[in-house]
């Protein structure tokens, strides 16, 4: 009779440690700043300080010129300098130096030459093209570290021509990008031999929770560097006088909801029932509860929902820069003492919010801002009109999210997290003749290799095709060891530098939408390239590059004869709505 149960050890957080930390390493860390000043007794037995250092950190040694972080990379860890010095570039370094060759716009001649230069075989690379040096970047393979590293060859020359700041032993950097999953704002390289402690974000988060000094340090940095600018970007606070804004800055609370690594279990999440999916989303504000403040979304996405029958109906989703709770705050300001949240706000995946407490909003913000303008935005028209509270759209009226889409489509987009896309490929199946001109055009512009699949989830007549959406939160970029996948800072597209890609599949495994394909590459004769050491095929990550460098813009869209295909920013719901209602 087959066994019905098999006992195995329950998987634990540190089963897969970040690095190979020995007891000696941890003992050493516990003796130095800032860990020697942390009270280990404040950590619970299930989450000891020693465990965090053992499981969530690693000691990394850098050679002179090694790039530690690059501007534009997505952060998932912070660094503490243990020995040596590192330099923070105060200017933007050339993409070539960082291993990200710019793709120049083709000329007409080059475009026409594609007619006879395109390969007949799939995924052909000439031998010269697959060497990392082909794009000017230098990659060092260090057997001790295991991961390849991009480095700068002439450090003295770089330092003499570029403004830099020096960081020495005991100094921390990269913590803001790690905690907020935002792009690194500067490039940091090792000046000489340097030893750094890399702390992954989970460990940093727990250290922050238990160690007020570290939390205060990170929050102070954010308050000093970014919070004021972020608040000023909000329409409500744009014209707020300086002293009142200072009060808001001081009172703003930072809150995070959801799982930072949401993409890891996204596949399993998506298979759950819709009601279960919503129920599993962390609640930021619960419908019916008394409002406690105004929520500003700092990063990530949140679902605005309302009870409907036995479930919750999505009214809108909101992202970076959007506000929740304005209507309720306005009602409280108007003297309505019996106000409750009219909708719920839930984290989709992971969301960082800034919470301005209600008393600060009522005493500092509303009396000093152009409330009438805000109310106009809320579509109330009349200051005394309390219908804003009942009108779910008013909750999300600041920003451009007033959602004219039907609720089922919003549910679909939120459940599949398609709202992450800035260049999502939508196909109108009521107009698409399935001619595949889009796929052929994509292939023709990419050396006869299509970079998307004309298939994907559908809702009524809308199909979201399996093409890179160039996400707002590009989780594919997290963990790329060579920084081959990066966002183009000028146009916002996420591109893979073929020369720098080492085929590790980290990006393809991280992409929740399966938009990245690992391909075996071959030389023009058809011979597959294999690794000398392992005899396994050399892989490269491929995906839609939004036709960067082409003269036409995205070839798929330009090739659709029936206006059935569009690349659209899902954050601009009104564009989606206008496109559907043509």
């Amino acid at each position: 009779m087959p066994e019905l149960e098999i006992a195995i050890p329950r998987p634990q957080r540190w089963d897969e440690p970040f690095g190979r930390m020995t007891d000696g390493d941890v003992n050493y860390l516990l003796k130095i700043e800032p860990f020697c000043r942390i009270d280990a007794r404040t950590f619970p037995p299930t989450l000891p300080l020693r465990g965090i250092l053992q499981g969530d950190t690693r000691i990394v040694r850098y050679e002179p010129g090694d790039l530690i972080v690059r501007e534009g990379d997505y952060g998932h860890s912070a660094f503490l300098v243990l020995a040596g010095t590192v330099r923070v570039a105060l200017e933007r370094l050339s993409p070539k130096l960082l291993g990200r060759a710019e793709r120049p716009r083709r000329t007409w001649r080059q475009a026409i030459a594609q007619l006879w230069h395109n390969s007949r075989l799939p995924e052909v690379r000439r031998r010269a093209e697959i060497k990392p040096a082909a794009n000017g970047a230098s990659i060092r393979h260090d057997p001790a570290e295991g991961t390849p590293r991009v480095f700068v060859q002439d450090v003295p020359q770089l330092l003499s021509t570029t403004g830099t700041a020096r960081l020495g032993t005991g100094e921390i950097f990269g913590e803001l990008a790690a905690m907020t999953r935002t792009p690194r704002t500067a490039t940091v390289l090792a000046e000489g031999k340097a030893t750094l402690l890399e702390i992954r974000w989970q460990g940093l988060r727990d250290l922050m929770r238990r160690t007020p000094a570290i939390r205060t340090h990170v929050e102070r940095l954010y308050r000093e560097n970014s919070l004021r600018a972020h608040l000023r970007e909000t329409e409500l606070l744009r014209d707020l006088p300086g002293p009142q804004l200072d009060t808001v800055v001081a009172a703003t609370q930072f809150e995070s909801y959801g799982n930072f690594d949401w993409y890891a279990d996204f596949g399993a999440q998506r298979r759950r029932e819709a009601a279960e999916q919503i129920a599993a989303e962390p609640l930021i504000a619960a419908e019916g509860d008394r409002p406690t403040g105004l929520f500003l979304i700092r990063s990530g996405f949140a679902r605005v929902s309302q009870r409907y029958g036995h479930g919750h109906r999505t009214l809108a989703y909101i992202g970076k820069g959007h506000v929740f709770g304005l209507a309720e705050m306005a009602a409280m300001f108007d003297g309505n003492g019996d106000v409750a949240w009219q909708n719920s706000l839930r984290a989709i995946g992971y969301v960082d919010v800034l919470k301005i407490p209600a008393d600060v909003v009522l005493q500092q913000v509303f009396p000093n801002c152009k409330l009438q303008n805000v109310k106009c935005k809320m579509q109330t028209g009349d200051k005394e009109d309390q219908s804003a509270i009942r009108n779910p759209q008013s909750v999300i009226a600041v920003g451009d999210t007033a959602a004219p889409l039907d609720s089922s489509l919003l549910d679909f987009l939120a459940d599949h997290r398609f709202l992450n896309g800035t260049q999502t490929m939508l196909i109108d199946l009521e107009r698409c003749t399935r001619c595949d001109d889009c796929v052929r055009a994509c292939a023709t512009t990419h050396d006869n290799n299509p970079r998307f699949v004309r298939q994907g989830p559908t809702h009524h007549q809308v199909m979201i095709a399996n093409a890179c959406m160039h996400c707002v939160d590009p989780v594919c970029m997290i963990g790329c060891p060579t920084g081959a996948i990066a966002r183009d800072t000028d146009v916002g597209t996420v591109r893979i530098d073929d020369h720098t890609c080492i085929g590790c599949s980290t990006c393809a495994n991280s992409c929740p939408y399966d938009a990245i394909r690992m391909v075996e590459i071959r030389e023009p004769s058809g011979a597959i390239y294999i690794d000398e050491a392992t005899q396994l095929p050399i892989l490269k990550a491929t995906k839609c590059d939004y036709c960067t460098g082409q003269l036409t813009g995205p070839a798929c869209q330009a090739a659709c004869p029936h206006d059935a295909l569009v690349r659209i920013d899902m954050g601009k719901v009104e564009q989606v709505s206008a496109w559907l209602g043509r």
Partner: protein
Amino acid sequence: MVRSFWKRRIRNSGLLMVALALVWLWVRTRERNLQPVAHETGYIMIAAVFFLALYNIRKKVPFLPLGTSSTWLQWHLYVGLGSIGVFALHTGWHWPTGIFETSLFALYASTMLSGLFGLYWTRTIPGQLARVGDEVTFERIPALRRRMQWQANETVIESVAASGTTTLADFYSAQMYGFFRLPRGVKYFLRPTTSRRKSLLADMQHLQRYLSEPERKACEKLFALVRRKDELDFHGARQGLLKYWLFVHIGLTYALVLAASLHGLMATAFGGGL
């Protein structure tokens, strides 16, 4: 940029009417002045035919910034429709005489008709496809069909093993095996209907009274498979029509370009000073 299709249709139709009216006025003026018009309308006609054929070339070079395919299609449609008027002016509303002219007329008419049919199909079939069954890629249909056939076979074989009777299996081999094994015929390809599905489902419904419990369960699975196979056939037929008409249209276009060029050359060479 999002545009309203209705506004575009009205604007383009209006422009076409104006253009045709201008050509007609110009031709009438020349005729009243006893000036020849055959060559002039012929040049317009041949230019239109070449322009219409150029659209296929545009599709082959998506990497050149020659305007979007959608804009080209609009021009293709309206120039194509306008060419009917120019053709009428060119022929003077007369039936052609001679083998070559008749062939040329037939080629133009069939190209135009195939285009009009194509326009109708490309505007109606996508909606039908979106409403019926799951979205499937045309090239995967044979593989999906084979998988469905395998599933149906397995279901029936399992029912025989479970029940020890062959009532369902006999019915399956007599009436359903071919349905699962083969794509549908030409008649279905041109005008798909649900009659075969309805007839099979009705027969299966009737058969239920003779089935054992395991066979009945298998029959339920077959019900679902018949529906899915019918939807797959529908997608195969409709998507196939959308693909194959284009081959016909393009083939006719190339023949028309050749014949029209030859006609133009001969008319220029042997025009006798007209």
